[in-house]
Every structure is written in C-alpha cells, then in structure tokens.
C-alpha cells in the first residue's frame, strides 16, 4: 500500500441507540476501485458518509497517510458522492448544477467551461444543459448527479447504490460505462456500494463484504468469489445467493435433506464425520439426474432461467442457461456437481473447505 492509503481503525457509529458500524478496520488503496457489497441496512451508506465527512464516528480513526481525515469537515475534503436517490439542486439547471462545485472551489470561468464540456460529453448530457432536474428522466438526473461528482478533482468518489432506482436497460448501460469512467483518473479512489455482486465483478478491484455493521470479508474481487470467508459472504457475493444446505458426513457419504445422498468428492475426503453446512452455486447444479424436487418458482433472468426447488427445511436454486419456463409444481430432476461443494462450520458459519478454483465465463474475468 502506498503512503497515502486510507485506513479505518476500530471505527464505531451508533445513531439513536442503534449500531450502524461496529469496529470497522479496513485499508483502502489511494487509487482504484473498491466495492462495498452487502444487503440493505448492512451499514454501507453509513460507511460512505463517514468517508465523506458527513457522519462522525463515536470512536475510532480514519486516516489518509499521516492526515487525520476526521478533523476535516466535509466541505473541505476532496470528495464526490452520488446517492441512490437522484440528488440534484432543484433550483438550478443542469449547467449550473454541474458547475456548482467548481464555482465553490473558485475555478475560473474558462476552466469551468472546459470541464463542463468534457464531463457532459462523457455522460451524454450536452442536450439537456438548460433543463431543470425536474424536467429530466431518472436516468438523466442520475447522470447529472454523477457529472457533478466527477467534474471536480476529488481524491475520493463515493457511490451509494447509484443504479438501484434505474430501469434494467439503463442499469446495464451505465454499469459498463462506470468501468470506463472510473479508469479515467489514475489518482482517485472510487468506493462503490451495491447489493448486486454483478456490479462488483464488472468493476474489479477490491471487495469489502458488509453485514449488520461489520466487515465480513475484504480482498481482491476474484479471491472473495472463490474463497468466501463464511456463509454470509457466500450468500451476499453470489447472485443468485449460494445454496446453503445443512447435512452430515456419515459412513463415507454426504447426507442432505430429503434423503439426498452424495458421494464424498476428492477435496472433502479429509473432513471428519459430523454436521456441516454445504454450499453450492446455482450454476453448479445441473438439470437432469436421479434426484428430484418440486418446482416452487421459475424466473427467466436475461439469458438464463432460475428454478427454485422445494426441499424440506430449505430450498434449492438452480441456474440453467437459456429460457426454459416450467409450470410450478413440476418435479425437476437435478444433480449436484460435488466437486464444486463448499463446506462451512455448522455453528459459526466459517468456511472450512473450498473447491478448486475454476475459471468461470459470463461473470467478468473471474
């Protein structure tokens, strides 16, 4: 890590008796992309607000190199932030909205004009400069908010689920653009909070998994995918979430719910007999085979179909390439690729054994 890297140490935030962040310890590089991923209310927004200087922690430290960032108020930091809601200044038109931070920073008129041209070109806003935010669509409003945060030279760019309130097509399009836009500036750290693992995979960089105000796991986006630290990381960082089935290893076999029995694959041979949680990704279950369960729900998601099967005490999610709608209640035969099984501790949920790393297509360059 460089000398100017960001560090959070033992950081705690509680608001009105409710704990939002608990004992956060993370290191972030000076530049690049970091994705914070977690469910709603995991503490992602609070973490971003601490980074922006909008929320002070009750205890702990947040530093960049030698600088104590907690002593610098938000308006003196070099930070940009984009919210999940499209926040723009309603009384200003698009041009004034985007140049607002530049005027505050006392840039010359010529500089402002030059930067404005650049950033509106980057985000395709040239035709809307004279409109008020209320006269724009949601996607355009979010582009304006993004333009406003990109136009000033910031050390930190914070994005809080910026695509959540947009429609599917626009989300796909902006997601691709983000990768291009974020790579434009070499000495800026982009921190991107999301609930969607696909966004983290597209953006690359470091991934921080959060759950209930704590950091569950932090690391390279590929490593976190292949080696989830526990069941929470496995669920949150997979879409659909990784199937988690409790079962026993007994007499040389894996016993799962509904009398489902599996041969122990090579990488699990060393496990002692006992109760474990077995994890398997939806894409590692094939349709067809000797096991059967009834279909509870089938959803077509882009180019694949996702089956939710009923098992006693849990459900099983299968991802199948192509569009194959099936009626609810149909029995579906399936087989698990046992070489892809993860094993977690039955009580703590910590990962015990990982399957071998394998290259996966269609999920970025993992």
């Amino acid at each position, binding site marked *: 890590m460089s000398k100017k890297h960001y560090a959070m140490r033992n950081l705690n935030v509680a608001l009105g008796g409710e704990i939002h962040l608990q004992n956060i310890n993370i290191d972030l590089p000076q530049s690049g992309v970091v994705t914070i991923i977690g469910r709603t209310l995991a503490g992602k927004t609070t973490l971003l607000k601490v980074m922006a200087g909008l929320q002070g922690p009750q205890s702990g430290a947040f530093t960049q190199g030698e600088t104590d960032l907690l002593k610098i108020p*938000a*308006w003196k930091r070099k930070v940009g*932030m984009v919210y999940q809601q499209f926040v723009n*200044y*309603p009384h200003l038109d698009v041009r004034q909205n985007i140049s607002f*931070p530049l005027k505050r920073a006392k840039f010359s008129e010529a500089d402002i004009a030059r930067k404005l041209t650049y950033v509106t070109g980057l985000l395709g806003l040239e035709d809307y400069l004279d409109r008020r935010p*209320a006269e724009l669509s949601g996607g355009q*409003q979010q582009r304006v908010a993004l333009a*406003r945060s990109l136009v000033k030279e910031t050390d930190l760019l914070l994005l809080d689920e910026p695509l959540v309130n947009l429609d599917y097509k626009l989300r796909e399009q902006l997601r691709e653009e983000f990768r291009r836009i974020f790579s434009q500036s070499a000495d800026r750290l982009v921190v991107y909070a999301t609930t969607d693992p696909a966004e983290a995979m597209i953006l690359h960089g470091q991934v921080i998994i959060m759950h209930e105000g704590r950091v569950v796991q932090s690391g390279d986006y590929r490593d976190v995918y292949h080696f989830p630290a526990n069941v929470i990381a496995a669920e949150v960082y997979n879409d659909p979430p990784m199937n988690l089935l409790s079962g026993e290893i007994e007499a040389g076999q894996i016993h799962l719910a509904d009398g489902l029995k599996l041969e122990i694959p090579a990488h699990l041979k060393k496990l002692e007999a006992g109760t474990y949680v077995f994890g398997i990704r939806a894409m590692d279950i094939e349709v067809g085979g000797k096991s059967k369960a009834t279909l509870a729900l089938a959803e077509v998601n882009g180019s694949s179909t996702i089956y939710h099967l009923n098992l006693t005490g849990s459900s099983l999610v299968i991802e199948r390439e192509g569009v194959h709608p099936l009626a609810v209640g149909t029995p579906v035969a399936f087989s698990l690729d046992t070489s892809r099984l993860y094993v977690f501790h039955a009580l703590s949920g910590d990962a015990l054994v990982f399957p071998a790393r394998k290259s996966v297509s269609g999920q970025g360059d993992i």
Partner: protein
Amino acid sequence: MRNLLRLIKFAAILIWSAFVVAPFLWALTTSFKTANGVTSGATYIPFVDYQPSLGAWKGLFGSGGGSIDIMGPFVNSAVVTLSASLISLILGTLAAYGLSRFTYKAGPVGNADLTFFFISQRIMPPVVLAIPFFLMLGLFGLLDTIFGLVIVYIALLMPIAVWVMVDFFNQVPRELDETAMIDGCNPVETFWRVILPNSKPGLVVAGIFCVVFGWNDFFFAFTLTFTKTQLLPVAIVSLNSSVTPWWSLSASALISVAPLILVAFLVERYLDKGNIAGGGK
C-alpha cells in the same frame, strides 16, 4: 345521474360562496349609504333601492365633517405588520433550519423541547401576555410607539414562522444539504445557496400566516397603545361611538381587508407548486 351530481356540486359551491361573499356585498352597499339609507331597511340595488353617497368614504380620508383619517392607522398597521413579519420570517427561518438539521442538547432539553417552546407561546391566551407586555414596554418607554408594537408582534409572529418552517425543512431531503457540503459549502453557505432558494413555498406560507395574524390583531394593538400610535383595527372599532356609523364601519372594514385579498391573489401561484420537485425522492 352524472348531471345530477354536477348540479349538487354546483349548488353546494353556490351556497358556500353566498355565505362567504354576502357579508362583503352587504358591507359594500352599506358603505355607499347615508344614515337614512341604512335605517330605512334592507336595500341592495343602488339608484333603485337607495341613493348612493360617497360620504362614508370621504369621511375616512379626512374630508368632510365629523370624520376621522383612516390613512394614519392604515400606514401604522402596514409598517408594524410588514416589519414584524419580515423580521419574524428571517429569525424564524434561521431558527427552524437549526432545529430541523442540528442537534441541540442542554441537559434534558433537546430539539423537540425547543420547538415546543416556540409553539407554546401561541398556546397561552393573549390576556396572559398583555400585562407583562404592558409593563415591559412601559419600563422602556415604548408604550404607544411603533417600535414597541413591532417588538411585541415579533414575539407573536415568530412562533408561527418557526412552526411552519420546521415542518417545511423536515420535508426537504437531508441529502440535499449533504450534497451541498460535499460540493464545498459550509453550513451557512448550504443554507443560503441551496436550502433557501428551494424554500419559496414554505416561506410564502409562513409569510402569509405572519401578515394575516399581524394585520388582524386587535387585542395587543388595543392594550399597548393610547392615542398617538393607532393601528387600523383599533381605529375602526373606535368609530363606534354613541351612534353606530354602519356606513363608515363598512368602508373601513373593506379598506382593512383589501391588502389581504391582494396578498392572497399575488401568492396563490406559489402555493400550487407546494413541493420542491427533483430534490430527491
């Protein structure tokens, strides 16, 4: 069926309008009558029912026998109401922004208590306040002065401004403030450059309440003045001597209502766009 419903609606509106407008029509016709015209029964159509006269109106502007000059009290009322409303609006808006956005703590006293403290001043009956106000103004030699009345009216109007504006600011998304700070505004600039320009609907409502309450106040205008500084409501009532001059009362009442009607028409369009669109969902 549909037409019947429309008919009922129109009838209801018509009846309601009659109730609202009739007193004004009554005042309007009466203001053009002479003493004889008023006492000779209910007549409404000029030139047919009665002979209109400009006597009452002339009397109010000091030309004509036994008249009073309504312009002096009118100007006094305008000065007191407008300056007190303006100062209340400025102070009240600042206080409301603070109460909405920042956390204050003095022992067990917090934001909610402070907000209630402001509003509680309107809960007390005015009579309770009149005597202390009288004594305080007397102490500083401000009885029967414009300045003294302005101070008292600020005390009466600011709670209204605080109340309306706290409510308004609570509706403005906090993300708007946060975005302004991230874009380089300190808290004062945030308020001045971002929040205030987006607060027109709230300011208009608070301003109307202040002006209406200030303009219509009779009680304090009556108890805290003698003869030198007369406000309009007091001047109108003081027309009422041994004989009730209905014609003058009507004319002066219309003069007193006119500015409020004007204000209502001017600000109506602001009230339409009641919320600040595009500031976040």
